[in-house]
Each structure stands twice: as structure tokens, then as C-alpha cells.
């Protein structure tokens, strides 16, 4: 069974449960850019139900952005991201595995930072040490010394992670009580590995700060990190709805209240909206909007300066 997540509090169904409702197509960024039903979670699930192999689905599996928008809309509660990751693991060839292992071996061991609250940033934010330091101060936390970028890459590409490397990374998190995670993709894995650690999306944590909320304007487009949002959808849909009610800004949400990913859809997010400023939770999302020009783009942490 591909994608059947069991043994956790959030046990979900596998690909066999897909009834072909196509609700996942409505929110899939790959569907929106290709209009090819084979390149969608439903296309993969239905093909698997009727005899396709992972190799048959290679192009489809590789096209997925892992934004997770498909999961909250699935009425059968299928672990659609898990299904795609399982398929990627089947497809990982020897060359990809070797390259991944080499990347991990080449990493210099980093002494862990000891703190009760840690920030796990993505590559773009990690590269901006000042911005990351400021965020850590706002949250009374410290940035993780080991950003686990090689592990994140392995998880997304389906290549194995040597137990020693994984243990080294996790040991840096074990003493913390709260982890602020910039890329929500981490959450599905870290919750399984460190079930006692409290994990909060970085965007959610910053948007709870009074100074940040107070600086949001009606004419702002607030861009939610799609991965963090979808993995905690039932809780966060309420969080952002309350933020909308309080500040009247607009969000990158569709009519189903699913977050529209920015990578290929920033133009669609902006279409028909009256926006004066774009506020992003993820550094990478800001870069996607810069190509449209004309809009100042700020990270949500920068609102604390206003």
C-alpha cells in the first residue's frame, strides 16, 4: 500500500481508498500548470489501483511539489504526500542514492546548540544570518546549528538517510521543548521521530506576536507557507481566519481555504487583487513574488519593526 500512514494518532488511508472525486486536482499546482490529470495525486492513486508500477509513474511522481494542498481536501483522508514519497523511494536510483550519501558524508559535524526553543530555518533564511538572528530574538529562541538541509533533500527525493547522520541531527533537537520550523515539510517527519517535541510553524509563531499582527494592513497580501499550513490545516484554518477577521488583510487562500503555493502560481495569487504590500512567511516565497515587480515584499518578521 502506498501512502498508508498507520500507527500514529493521525492514521490515514492508502491509495486503494481513492474514489476518484478529483478534489485534489482543484488545489494541485502541478494540475494548474499542466492540466494533465496523470500528473496529480488522483492520477497516481487511480493508476496504482489498476496495475501501474512506480516506474510507470516516474514523470508524475517527480512533478509533485510536496505542497500538501491535496491532503486536507481528500474526503478519504489518504496520505497523498506519503504516497508520493513512497513512490520516490522506490524510484531513487543508485546514482541519486550515492550522491545523497556523499552529501551527508561531506558535512562537517556541528556541535548542537542547547536551548529550550529552537528555530529550524530553510536554506534561504539560513543564508541570511542577520534575519535569522532577529527572528530567533523575536521568539526568544536560538537558531539550530545544524539546519539538516541534506536530510530534507534526502526525504524529499526518497533516498535513504544513514542512521548515524539522522541521529546526529536529532540529538541537536532533543533538549528543546519547542521547535519553530520554517519549512512545514519537516513536521510530518519530526513528529514521528520526536513525538514529545512541540512543533510550531515559524509563520504561525511570528503571526501570533502582537507587534507583527498590529503592523498588518488591510491592503497587505499575507502569503502563508503552504506546507506548514496544510500539515496542520484543521487548526491553522481557524488561526488565519481569525487573523483575517482582526486585520482584514487578504491571503493566498482559495475558496476552499487551501493555501495556493507560490512557486508557479504567484501571478494567479495576485490576479484581481488590490494589493499594496506582500508579506511572506517563507524567504523563498518572497523571491517568487519579486519577479512581478511593483510590490514591496517583506518577511513577516520584519513587521515587528513597524
Amino acid at each position, binding site marked *: 500500500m502506498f501512502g498508508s500512514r498507520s500507527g500514529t494518532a493521525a492514521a490515514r488511508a492508502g491509495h486503494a481508498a481513492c474514489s476518484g472525486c478529483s478534489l485534489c486536482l482543484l488545489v494541485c499546482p502541478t494540475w494548474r500548470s499542466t492540466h494533465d490529470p496523470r500528473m496529480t495525486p488522483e492520477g497516481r492513486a487511480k493508476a496504482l489501483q*489498476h496495475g501501474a508500477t512506480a516506474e510507470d509513474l516516474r514523470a508524475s511522481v517527480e512533478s509533485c511539489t510536496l505542497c500538501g494542498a491535496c491532503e486536507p481536501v481528500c474526503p478519504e483522508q489518504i496520505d497523498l504526500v506519503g504516497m508520493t514519497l513512497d513512490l520516490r523511494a522506490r524510484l531513487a536510483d543508485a546514482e541519486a542514492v550515492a550522491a545523497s550519501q556523499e552529501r551527508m558524508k561531506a558535512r562537517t559535524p556541528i556541535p548542537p546548540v542547547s536551548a529550550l526553543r529552537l528555530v529550524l530555518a530553510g536554506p534561504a533564511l539560513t543564508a541570511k544570518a542577520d534575519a535569522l538572528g532577529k527572528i530567533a530574538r523575536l521568539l526568544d529562541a536560538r537558531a539550530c546549528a545544524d539546519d539538516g538541509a541534506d536530510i530534507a533533500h534526502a526525504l524529499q527525493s526518497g533516498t535513504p538517510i544513514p542512521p548515524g547522520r539522522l541521529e546526529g541531527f536529532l540529538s541537536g533537537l532533543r533538549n528543546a521543548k519547542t521547535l519553530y520550523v520554517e519549512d512545514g515539510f519537516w513536521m510530518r517527519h519530526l513528529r514521528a521521530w520526536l513525538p514529545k517535541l512541540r512543533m510550531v510553524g515559524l509563520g504561525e509563531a511570528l503571526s501570533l506576536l502582537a507587534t507583527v499582527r498590529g503592523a498588518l494592513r488591510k491592503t497587505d497580501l499575507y502569503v502563508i507557507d503552504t506546507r506548514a499550513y496544510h500539515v496542520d490545516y484543521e487548526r491553522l484554518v481557524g488561526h488565519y*481566519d481569525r487573523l483575517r477577521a482582526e486585520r482584514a488583510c487578504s491571503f493566498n487562500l482559495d475558496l476552499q481555504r487551501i493555501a495556493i503555493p507560490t512557486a508557479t502560481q504567484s501571478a494567479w495569487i495576485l490576479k484581481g487583487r488590490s494589493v499594496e504590500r506582500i508579506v511572506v512567511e517563507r524567504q523563498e516565497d518572497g523571491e517568487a513574488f519579486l519577479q512581478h515587480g511593483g510590490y514591496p515584499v517583506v518577511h513577516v518578521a520584519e513587521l515587528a519593526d513597524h
Partner: protein
Amino acid sequence: MNALTPALEIPSVEPGTLGACPVAPDALQGIKRQQTNPSRWRGGNWQAFAGELQGLGVELSESIAARGAYATDAGGTAYGLPHGVVVARSAQQVSNLLKAAQAHRVPVTVRGGGLTTEGESVAFGGVLLDMTGMSKVLAIDAAGLTVRTQAGIFWHSLAEELRRENLDYLSAPLNLTSSVGGTLGVGGIDVNSARLGCSADQAVALQVVTPTGEIVECSDTHNAELFERVILGYGQFGVITEATLKVRPYTPLRMHYYYYSSLRTAIEDLQLLDRNDASDYSGILTILDCAVNLLVAFDSVEREAAFRARWESRLRGHGEFGFGLRMLGRYALRPWKLGEALFLLGRKRELFPELRRPEYMRDGVMLDRTVVFSRAVWKFWGGRQMVIPDLATSADKFADAVERGNAVCRKYFPHYTLYCVGIRLRPDHREHYEMSCIPPDAEEWAYGCEFEPMTNGRAYSRDHLQSFKNAIYDIGVDIGASYYRFGGMMKGYIRRVFGDTLVERHLAMKRKADPAMILNRDVIF
């Protein structure tokens, strides 16, 4: 084979000609059937056809990954595999496909959202043409209140685009993933259809690729005969590639729910509201026949106030609290029905919060009714197997039809739902309605009821489900009704309800339009 039993001979009959029905006695026993395609298409000419498509630049996918994705429809009881799949990209590509299919006599089955329940969008060989590849909105005329869109688009994707202009479509099925083209071909009902008509009546103009590959623009005034046949034509007379539809300004909804314990009373009140244009939205949704919910909603404060002043007091339904008290009394006196009471209570606990999710409401007003209702439909009624027989009648026959259908549901399933709505008819579209879901004797309004078992994960045999459907459809034959889902596995009823003369006339038109009988050949005829 027993020597005394003659072998079942399947006669060799050319597509497009009539032969004896070779289907062995089955669940439709006793029903006179004639098929234009008496045997499954076995792949003759496929290689030559595939080669021609390649030469024409039409991408044809023959892998199991591509074909397997279309093995069944939303009904999940009809299974079949196409020889190959074409994802629609343009009218010209569809035209090239159909011309080659005519020349090589290869069946083409067209699929939009795949939400048929009787196998109408399942290909039993030949080509599966997936229209969802044509999903772009082409132009929105906000002043003229129309939209031009490719016809493979899902209604919800269209709604997303329209909302950015503060517009909305008129009416569409409450499931998010019906396609525009597929809906225009069969009808499409919404909780505002009693006022705005069926979805098919929203179409102002269409671009159609005929079964012989001509690309034709049609409307009520231009190529009107083709327009007449394609609208509500169950895909027999062409592939809709583009559509111009009426749209309207977007409005959030003011919802009211009234609860009844009598189906007939609720239906009478529904028809009272419809006759008097007392609401903007109206429909009945039940849990069994015990909790009958009349839904009434409004686009504006003024309409809501007018309803409250003039009509609300005439409704015989109760509010949620009052109805709850009545139910408490009812089941206190009937302790042997405790199981039913617990089921109703459990259903209420699960379903009601879904209909009131705060992110879709603002200040007591529902922002996105299609999202709210459609998500609930998929969550509570969706599944790998969906059987939804229906009856469509004139207004005066409707209560009888629903009561008789309800008795059938009671006999076959422990739990089920009924969904009833009115459909305002357009007098100028009477020709469109011939041999469609609109019953011939309906005047001003037709009424439709879907009978939907809630299987709760329990597996039922195909025979059980088929017998249930037959029992519902027999009511239609008896009282002179029509059906929304009369194609595919239920096509045996077409001649029973419409009569041979009418069906033969349509078949003659089909033969003329589609000489090799390639387009959606197993759906109606």
C-alpha cells in the same frame, strides 16, 4: 457447455446497425432492449488508427498508468479500459481525433469530471478523451455578465476565476468537480435551480466538435438545431469544447433550515415557495425519512425580509430545537427504534458542524455555499461505490414519486438520504428537453429526487444495487417520469419511458450525425 444448451451466439454486426441483444438474462430481465453496438469493440484497426493519430500530432497514451486512471467512474460499479487515452488540448486536436476515429470506426468515450454513476464515462475499449485538459477561462465579460470558457473546466475552477471579478456562475451541481461540458450535456441541478433553471439552460453559445470532426459554433440563433441536440444530449451529437455561459454578481447566502417529519408536507412547502418565488434557494435534504430538512436561502437582506414577513409563518417545518424536542418525544414512545434515533443523532453531530464551519461563514452569512455543501457531500456520501438513482417528474406527481421511492429505499438499505429540488423550465427550450431528464409533461417546473443509500463502508453486491435502481426506475415507468441518470447501465429504461417512436427518431438523427456510431456509443443507444 451442456450439449442441450445452445451456445450464445454473438452476431457479427457492423457498428451503427441493429442486431439482436446478446446480453444474457440479467438484472434487467424482461426489459426489451435493443443495442446499436451489440458486442464490445475488440480493437480492430487500432494500430492503423494510432499511427494516423501520431501523424496528426495527437498524443495518445497507451500505458497502463494512463489507461488505468480511467477504469471506472464515480459510481464505481462499471469497469472498463480504453485502448488509449487522449487528453484534450484544443478543438482542432479533438477534430483530428474524431475524423480519424470515424475513418477507422474506433469508439471515442468523452469524460469530464468522471462523475457519472452508470459507466457513461467509462470506455469499454477505444479512446478515452479526457476533456479536463481544456480547462482555461478564455474571457470574462463583467458588464455583459457572461464568461467564455473551455468546456473541460471544473465548475469550481470556474468559480475561483469568477470570484476574482466578484462574479459567480448561475447554478452548478454541488460537488465541485463536475465539468462544464459534461454538465451541459446532461442538465445540472443546484439549490437555486427552482429559480434559475438547470445548468444546461445557462449556456448562451457553444463551440462543438461534431462526431465527424467539424468545429461549429452554435446557439439558439446560430446552428440552432445542433445547439438543441447538444444541450442535454448526453454527448451523442458532439464534443463541447468551449461554452459561453451566463454569470451573475457574487452574493453570500443567508441560510435557513426547517425540519419536518413528513416528506409530503416538506415537498408541499418546497413547492409553495417555488411557485411564489419566495426564496432564492430551496431544496430538501433528508436523513432517512425521519429528519426532512427544507433548506431555504437568500441572496439579499430584502428578499430574506420579504420571506419572513409573508411566507415563513406558512411553512409547517420546525426550527432545530423544536424539531429536536418532537423527535425526543417520538422516540421515547418507540424505544424499539433506539438504533434509528442514535443514527440520526450521530449524523447530526457529524454533519451540522461541517455546514457551519466558521471559515466559510461571516456574520452569520455563508460565503461559499458550493464549497460547504460539496465538501459535505464528498465527506459523508462519497466513496468507492456510489449508487444514486433518481426520478424527475412534473410538480403534481412529485410527492407520490418521492414517497414510493422512499419505500424502496427503506426496503433495500438501513440508511439513506433523499435530495429534492425544483428545476425552472425555459419555455423557449422545450425542444432541448426532448428525451432528456426533463419529463415531457412538466410545465414551468420539473422536480428531481435523488435516492442515495449511505453504505457506511458496507459492500453490497452489484445485483443488490441493480435491483434497487430498477425498483426506483420502475416507479418512473409507472407514473410517467424521466431520470437524470438514464444512460449507461440504466439505458434499458430509455425506450420504456420515452417509447420506441421517439427513441428511433433520435437514433436516426444520431446515425446521420455520427455515421460510424463512434461517439459515446454505449451511453444512450
